[in-house]
C-alpha cells in the first residue's frame, strides 16, 4: 500500500494541472467567491432632475450615489439615460410627487432601490422600467445564452480539436497539401455554425417559455453574439493547443468557465463586488455579452448605448482569435516550412 501511495504522489507531482486544481483553485475560488458572492448593493448610481432636484438630492438616502443633479433635464432625458444604461436610477422631480425610474434589468440593484424608496412612503412614486415585476428569468435568460455559448465555444471546441491531436490525425493533416488557414477555418467553422444554431434555439426558447421580452434589434443582437462566439471559440482553440488529451482540455476549460460564471455580473452584481474583483470581471468576455444581451432584450438599447461592450468584445475577439490561430498554426508549421522549401527547390 505504501508503494501505491508513493506512486500516486509521484504521478500527481508531475501532473501540474491536477495539482493546480487541487491546491490553487480552491484558494482562488474561496477568495473570489467570498468577495463576489454578494447580493447586497451598497451604492446605486443615481441622477436627479427637475426643479426640486437639489433638495431631493440632499435628502436622498445614502444608498443612492447621486452623480448628477440637473434642474433643466426633462423626463425624456431621464428615459434616454436609462435606456443607454448611463445610470441605474433617475429621480424625476418634474412630477408631484417625484418619480423614481429604476432599471429593472439590474435585478439586485432594482430590488435594493425599490425597497429603499418603499421605506420613504408616499414621498416618491416608483416606476420600474424594463422588468416591472423584477422577474429573475427575464434577467437570467439573456445572460444564460452567453453562458451556453461559452460552454459550447470553450469546452466542445477544445475537445473536438484535441481529439485530432490525440488520435494522431493532426500529424496527418500537417503533411497533407492543406493550407494551415484551410485546416483552422475548416475545424472551427462547424462549431461556429452549430453554436450559432444553439444561440438561435436558446433565444427563441427563452422568449417562448419564459416570456422574456425581446425589445431590441435582432440583427444587433446577432452581431454581438457572433463577435462573442469568435472570442469563446478562440479560447477553445487556445485551450486545445495547450492540451494533449481531452481530459486536460476539459480541466482547462472549466478553469476558464468558472470565473466567467461567478464574475461576469449575471449572478452577482458587479456593483456589489469590491473594485479589484469587479476589475477581474471587467476582463471577462461574458461580462460584455451579458451587458449586450440584457440591454437589447430588456431595454431595447441600440448601438449608441452599447458601443462600448461591442468595441471591447471586438478587441477581445481579435486578440484571442489571432493568438489561437498562431498557436494552432505552430502545430502545422513544419509542413509550411517544408512546402516553402520544396517550392523554392
Amino acid at each position, binding site marked *: 500500500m505504501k508503494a501505491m501511495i508513493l506512486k500516486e504522489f509521484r504521478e500527481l507531482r508531475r501532473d501540474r494541472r491536477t495539482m493546480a486544481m487541487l491546491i490553487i483553485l480552491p484558494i482562488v475560488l474561496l477568495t473570489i467567491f467570498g468577495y463576489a458572492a454578494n447580493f447586497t448593493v451598497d451604492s446605486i448610481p443615481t441622477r436627479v432632475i427637475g426643479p426640486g432636484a437639489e433638495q431631493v438630492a440632499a435628502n436622498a438616502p445614502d444608498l443612492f450615489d447621486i452623480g448628477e443633479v440637473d434642474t433643466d433635464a426633462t423626463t425624456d432625458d431621464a428615459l434616454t439615460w436609462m435606456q443607454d444604461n448611463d445610470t441605474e436610477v433617475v429621480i424625476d422631480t418634474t412630477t408631484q410627487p417625484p418619480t423614481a425610474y429604476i432599471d429593472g434589468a439590474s435585478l439586485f440593484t432594482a430590488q435594493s432601490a425599490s425597497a429603499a424608496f418603499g421605506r420613504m412612503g408616499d414621498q416618491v412614486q416608483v416606476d420600474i422600467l424594463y422588468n416591472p415585476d423584477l422577474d429573475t428569468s427575464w434577467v437570467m435568460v439573456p445572460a444564460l445564452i452567453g453562458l451556453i455559448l461559452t460552454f459550447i465555444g470553450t469546452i466542445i471546441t477544445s475537445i473536438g480539436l484535441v481529439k485530432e491531436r490525440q*488520435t*494522431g*490525425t493532426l*500529424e*496527418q493533416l*500537417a*503533411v*497533407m*497539401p*492543406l493550407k494551415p488557414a484551410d485546416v483552422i477555418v475548416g475545424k472551427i467553422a462547424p462549431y461556429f455554425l452549430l453554436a450559432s444554431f444553439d444561440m438561435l434555439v436558446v433565444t427563441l426558447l427563452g422568449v417562448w417559455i419564459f416570456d422574456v421580452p425581446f425589445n431590441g434589434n435582432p440583427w444587433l443582437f446577432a452581431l454581438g453574439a457572433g463577435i462573442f462566439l469568435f472570442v469563446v471559440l478562440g479560447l477553445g482553440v487556445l485551450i486545445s493547443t495547450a492540451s494533449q488529451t481531452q481530459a486536460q482540455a476539459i480541466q482547462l476549460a472549466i478553469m476558464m468557465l468558472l470565473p466567467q460564471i461567478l464574475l461576469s455580473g449575471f449572478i452577482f452584481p458587479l456593483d456589489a463586488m469590491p473594485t479589484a474583483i469587479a476589475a477581474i470581471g471587467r476582463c471577462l468576455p461574458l461580462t460584455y455579452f451579458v451587458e449586450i444581451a440584457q440591454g437589447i432584450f430588456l431595454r431595447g438599447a441600440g448601438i449608441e448605448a452599447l458601443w462600448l461592450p461591442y468595441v471591447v468584445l471586438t478587441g477581445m475577439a481579435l486578440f484571442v482569435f489571432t493568438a489561437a490561430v498562431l498557436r494552432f498554426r505552430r502545430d502545422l508549421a*513544419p*509542413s509550411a*516550412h*517544408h*512546402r516553402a*522549401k*520544396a*517550392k523554392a*527547390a
Partner: protein
Amino acid sequence: MTAWGVTGLTVERGGHVSLADVSVSVDPGEIVAVVGGDGAGKTTLLRTLAGAIRPTEGEVSAPSLERIGFMPTAAGVWRDLSVDENIAFVAAAHGLSGSVLEERRAALLRGAGLEGATTRLARNLSGGMRQKLAFSLAMLHRPELLILDEPSTGVDPVSRVDLWRMVSLAASQGAAVVMATTYLDEAERAHRVLVLNGGAVLLDGTPAEVLDGVPGHVVAADAPGEPARTWRRGRRYRVWSPDDPPAGVARVADIEDAVVAAAIAKGD
C-alpha cells in the same frame, strides 16, 4: 529520376539528440526499410522526411506535400468517419474527383480487401483493416514518395502479407518507398536496409550488403557463450565473434542476426 532522402541529418529535440548525421536516399521504384530498436530514431527520420519535424542540421530532399504519401504510426485514419468518407476527405484534399478518383478508389479498396466495408466507421475496423485503409489513403494520390511508419506493427500475418503486396505494387508503379518496420523478414524483402541504433546509422545497403557489412561473424550454438555476446533465438543460441568467419562461411544468416550482431559489435 529523382532520388529523395536526407543528407547529414541531425535532429535535436528538448536537448536530446534523436538523430545524428543520418543519410539515406531512395530512388523511384525502390523500397528502403528502416529498422532499429525502440528509440533508434526511425519515426523521427520518417517524420522529418515528411516535413512534420524541422531538422536541426542537414538537408532534406523531398517532393512537395502534394506528392508525398504519409502513413503515421497511429494509422492516420479518422475513426469517426466511414471508409468511404475517409477516402472522400483525402481525395478532396488532393483535388481528386470524377473517374480518376473512382478508378483509384476501387483499385485500392480491392487491393486492401475493404470493398465490403466502405460504410463501416474506421473505429469499427480491425487493426489490420485500419492499417490497410491508412495505406490506401497515403496511396490515393499516387505519391512520388511514400513514407510508411511501421505499417504492419500489430497486424495479423494475413494482413501483413496484404500490406506488403500493396507496398510492392506501389513501388512497381514508380513510388519511392521508405518504411520503418520492426519485422526483419520484411526488411529482407526491401531493396535497401537502413539500420539505426540510438539515432545513428549502424548498417546501410542492400540486404546482401548489410549481411556482409557486419563486423565479425555469428554462429548458431546449442549452449550460450560469453553473456554479452550471446542471445537466444528460438530454441538455440547465437554467439557473436569479432573475428572474420572461416572462408566460404557467411558472417550472419539473416538481417535479424545482422542487426543484433552490429549492435553488440558497436558496444563491444
